[in-house]
């Protein structure tokens, strides 16, 4: 039971990191970006590429399975994923924004996600892989609960990033502009804010968090080209559960989806685990389509 709780929180943290970027871009750019999940895969594989290049820089640190190469690789992955997100926006979404309806953008994002997934398949192949072959021994954290050091690291990093992002949104001018843009783009412009610049930073932040989510997934589960594809539904479930544009909502939404997936195995055959986020999404859209926390916290729309 305790083990399921810990696993759920870990899955939830990874979903939350991805869902934050999704909820930000959905809130600010006002369309459902199905390509967001592919940024997670891209980030994971960019870190893998960096690790294979930087390998000689050092072995595992302490109890963890990774060392300096993966830490630097994660930073590189954040940068390279931001570049991809900005390129996609510049080449596809910006061309369609303003002149096309939302559905056109949504379908364009489907196309982009296929393209990115196939590109990864082409470069890295379809086989599952890992950042490191170092074997880890799970350490007992509490009675009935054993966690790997990497899993604890993933939880810690996710928590730090969520708190940092929250402080950024609350206390910086850029964060304030992002929240304002999510509510009312015209009024934000009238107040002298360059919305193009804010949109650029929204992509960079969303893509960077997606890259970290990808690395943490690769670190605690495994790397596969369809990582993003399998995360699309949980990400949307988390973002919509929390209310589009609502950062704390996306984090809580991610946790709910992660825990639900993890506890579902007690009542459902494991094969149905994938259906859990879908059921949550359906339930939310049916009962509270604006999300659980609409109009109560953060940058709710």
């Amino acid at each position: 039971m305790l083990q399921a709780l810990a696993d759920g929180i870990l899955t939830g943290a990874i979903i939350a990191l991805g869902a934050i970027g999704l909820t930000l871009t959905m809130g600010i750019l006002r369309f459902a970006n199905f390509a967001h999940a592919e940024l997670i895969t891209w980030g994971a594989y960019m870190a893998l590429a960096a690790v294979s290049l930087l390998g000689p820089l050092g072995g595992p640190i302490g109890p963890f399975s990774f060392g300096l190469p993966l830490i630097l690789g994660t930073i590189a992955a954040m940068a390279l994923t931001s570049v991809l997100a900005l390129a996609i926006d510049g080449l596809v979404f910006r061309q369609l924004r303003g002149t096309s309806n939302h559905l056109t953008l949504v379908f364009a994002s489907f196309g982009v996600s296929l393209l990115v997934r196939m590109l990864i398949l082409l470069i890295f192949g379809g086989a599952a892989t890992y950042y490191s072959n170092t074997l880890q021994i799970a350490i007992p954290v509490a009675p009935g609960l054993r966690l790997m050091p990497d899993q604890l690291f993933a939880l810690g990093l996710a928590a730090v990033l969520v708190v940092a992002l929250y402080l950024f949104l609350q206390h910086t001018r850029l964060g304030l502009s992002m929240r304002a843009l999510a509510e009312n783009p015209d009024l934000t412009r009238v107040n002298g804010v360059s919305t193009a610049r804010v949109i650029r930073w929204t992509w960079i932040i969303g893509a960077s968090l997606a890259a970290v989510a990808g690395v943490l997934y690769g670190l605690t589960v495994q790397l596969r080209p369809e990582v993003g594809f399998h995360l699309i539904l949980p990400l949307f479930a988390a973002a919509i559960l929390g209310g589009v544009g609502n950062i704390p909502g996306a984090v809580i939404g991610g946790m709910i989806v992660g825990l639900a997936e993890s506890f579902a195995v007690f009542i459902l055959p494991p094969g149905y685990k994938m259906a859990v986020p879908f059921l949550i999404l359906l339930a939310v859209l049916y009962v509270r389509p604006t999300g659980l926390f609409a109009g109560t916290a953060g940058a709710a729309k």
Partner: protein
Amino acid sequence: MSDALLTVSGVVAGYRRDLPILHGISLEVHRGELVTIVGPNGAGKSTLIKAIAGLVPISEGRVELDGTDITSLATHKMGSASVAYVPQTDNVFTTLTIDENLRLGAAALPRSLAKDRIAQAYKRFPALRDHRDRKARVLSGGQRQLLAFARSLLTEPALLMLDEPSAGLSPAAVSEVFGHLTDLSKDGITILMVEQNVKAALAISDRTYVFAEGENRIDGPSGVLADDPDMKAIYFGGTKRSTHAASAG
């Protein structure tokens, strides 16, 4: 007019290039004046203000502020060109606190200056200071209007443009809001506003323009226009005429 702050000449504008809403509007606002635009629904009053603010594309004509061409300036650069605009609806960020609304309005200023200006705003509008950490959605219609004024004044604009500041307000709130407008005008702020509440607007403004069907039909000192029979003709059907009831200024 030598002292014109804002000069609009022959402006043709609309959301779509092939469907202009304004068919050649010309007007002037002089330094320190409070000028009102009135006219029936669909006359293009709000469209003109949005076009000046850069939110509606201008296809012909020219907008000058203090001799500088601002016809096609991007909306987010209007602030540095000293033009502030308060939209009719959704003119505050309801998900942000009152303090955050003001901080956003001052985001283009250096930090220390922003702090001073926000302190000044609270001095002018003490009701806002009392609720500074609450979300703007808790404010009444009149208080929202004052917050929007306060926010747009932070950059000390040369020209303040208001789109129907009395819309949806109770009579008491209208007189409070208009009282503040009179004070702002007395302090030397140049104001161009669109109003549906013709009587109240004529009472506080220096000059008034009457729009109909995307053209300006009549203009003159508000006191003279208040008694003008043509005003009624415009309001009840808008016959085509271009007579000026009185020459400007």
